[in-house]
């Protein structure tokens, strides 16, 4: 079979391509990113918990953070953007056309705050998760308790990252 035979060329090119495909799929390519499958479940399934190493990767992976932000925006129940630039001090109340979020210090336990969420449309299918992100930081996630009469409430540690983020005007919030 001559060296320039098209059959030979195609056959050898196929073997080269196959070797490259196998090399690209070899385990040496240590996983360094969070898959979109995991992001989708993280965004949609309150019961799904990202493995700690994946959570750590997500926190430092700008591309994954952007994908997650877009995923949260698509089909969100409500989006509460960052407060106006003029806003200062801790935020206690956030409002949109869909919902009102209120942070209230607990009287019973020092260092705790209540997050109350009230939906404006009582007939709407209530969200099951809250996502919050302070500018330049990673997303925080909270599985919401069941709504009753379009309201729900959850007790947070005031020092927890989520509570601090919710009190910060530089934080945007999604309800899903």
């Amino acid at each position, binding site marked *: 079979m001559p060296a320039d035979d098209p059959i030979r060329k195609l056959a*050898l090119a196929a073997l080269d391509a196959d070797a490259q495909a196998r090399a690209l799929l070899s385990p040496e390519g240590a996983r360094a990113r969070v898959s979109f499958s995991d992001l989708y479940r993280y965004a949609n399934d309150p019961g799904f918990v990202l493995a700690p190493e994946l959570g750590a990767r997500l926190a430092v992976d700008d591309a994954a953070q952007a994908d997650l932000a877009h995923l949260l925006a698509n089909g969100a129940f409500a989006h509460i953007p960052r407060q106006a630039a003029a806003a200062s001090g801790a935020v206690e109340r956030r409002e949109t056309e869909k919902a009102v979020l209120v942070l209230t210090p607990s009287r019973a336990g020092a260092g705790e705050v209540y997050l109350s969420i009230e939906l404006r449309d009582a007939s709407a299918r209530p969200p099951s998760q809250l996502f919050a992100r302070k500018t330049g930081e990673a997303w925080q996630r909270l599985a919401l308790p069941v709504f009753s009469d379009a309201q729900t409430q959850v007790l947070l540690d005031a020092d927890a990252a989520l509570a601090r983020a919710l009190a910060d005007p530089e934080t945007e919030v999604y309800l899903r």
Partner: protein
Amino acid sequence: MSTALENLTLEEGKSEVLRAALACVAESSSADGGPRYSEKVCRELARSIVCRSYAKPLLELSHLLVAASARDGRYEDLFWGVSRASAGEFRRSFMALAGMRDGIVIGTNAVTHEDGDGFQISYTRMPFLAALLEFMIMTLGYPAVDDMTGELRRPGAGEEKALAAARALQRSLYAYLKEHLPPVQRQRRERHFLGFVDMRAGNRTGADAINDEVVLSYWKAYAASDEIEARTFRAVYDTARRLISVIDAAEERLSGSYAKPIGTDHEAGEVDPADLDVVVCALDDDEGPLAQLLDTCGEQVKFVNQIEAETLSELPLGEATARRIPVSVLRNAVFGAAQLRLSTALRRGGAPIGGLPVATDPFYRARLDTYATVIETTEKMALAALWSLHRARRPEAVVLALELAPDIDWGKLMPVNGDDDNDDGAVVSLAAAAALKQFFESGPNAKGDEVAALLADARTAWRGVNRNGFRGDPDADEIDVMAAAARDVLRLISAVRRTLDRDLHGVDWPTFEAGDAVAFTEMFKALYESGKEAENHAG
């Protein structure tokens, strides 16, 4: 030199980004912790990337996104709403969308986007397209992919929108791969072997020039050589097998039996991506239906257990290899395995050469008997599956019955009132439906008619096995997997029977047993005359 090293590092860096994206897809897990995409799908994805044959799949994907957006435009919910990307799960998800959007027809085997000429995508294709979509998102970013496919979410998105989205995705992927896909490395081992074949080809051309004599001669000539890595017979056999697959596939592809795309110049040495994809695919196809069956069944339904799978994997179940190099198949199974054991033993402690087949042993014939025994067990499992699928009234029971008992007079199942004696399609359908109903109403009876007796055999087979998916009352998932695997198991049985009866039958095995026992023992002694040497050249 330093420039060459720098280039190498640069190439590795480029491929590392692409490798990470593919690894993400390959390692995506389903809700039960198993892989979301099968190994076969991941290989297909990597192949289409490396061969740059993604144009048609991206068009398919674009049409599929239109169909998947039928409910509320959120195609993500359909693609990632399924836990494991399998044909069955996609079928169930699409069935729930039936009638939701004009122009989208949800069928039993496929989804059709009815616009222009119409575009149909089968459920079996969807796992690959889902992996392709995830890969696109991992490489280009979700916002970018969403931007390019946004029009497809809207009601009324037609053929032109699908084409425009496919082109945009194609352009972006092309640009990405230009940055991240390094040039292919020439495979030296295959080229060296092919050079040896050329010298001995005589009048033979193509894969015909690769035969048992060439394979053995090459191994004898180069096993101890530093010129090329050919120490194990298995490696040489694998090289020969791969070359047979790709040369046959390339010959068939270039035989002019299909229309070449305009713009590809073979004379100038160009390789058309579609040709390349088809020929690379032949390498997977050479593994035959065993991999597909194992892929479909996972751990849920054990038509074939691990030991049986390992045994059958010794047989090349594609069309060509066993036909062209039948003796090498068994040489690899017997002496390839022996060499592996030998080199492992020597590496661990310098055990002497021993335990090898001797000239008076019928070792090749014993191996053939083993394959026959395993496939008889697989046939029994298929018969047991017939019982389970018949009880579940799954149409795949008919597929199994027709194949496992082809001599039965299936006309007995047909209605006797004369409805079926004309050519009207509708009437034939009614007759088929009636036959199906009668089949499922038949019960097992060893002394009854042929169908009843077959069902009695199937019940006996069911009671005689105790494996995953074949005990007690299988749940709906197990029945689904069993049904999905019915054709795969029949293909496996057929391929093994063909290989045993057509390719490996009629060889003068006693003569090869006598000659090979001596030849391989001498070669092993020459290669592994000291444990120290074996340590240096781990097989």
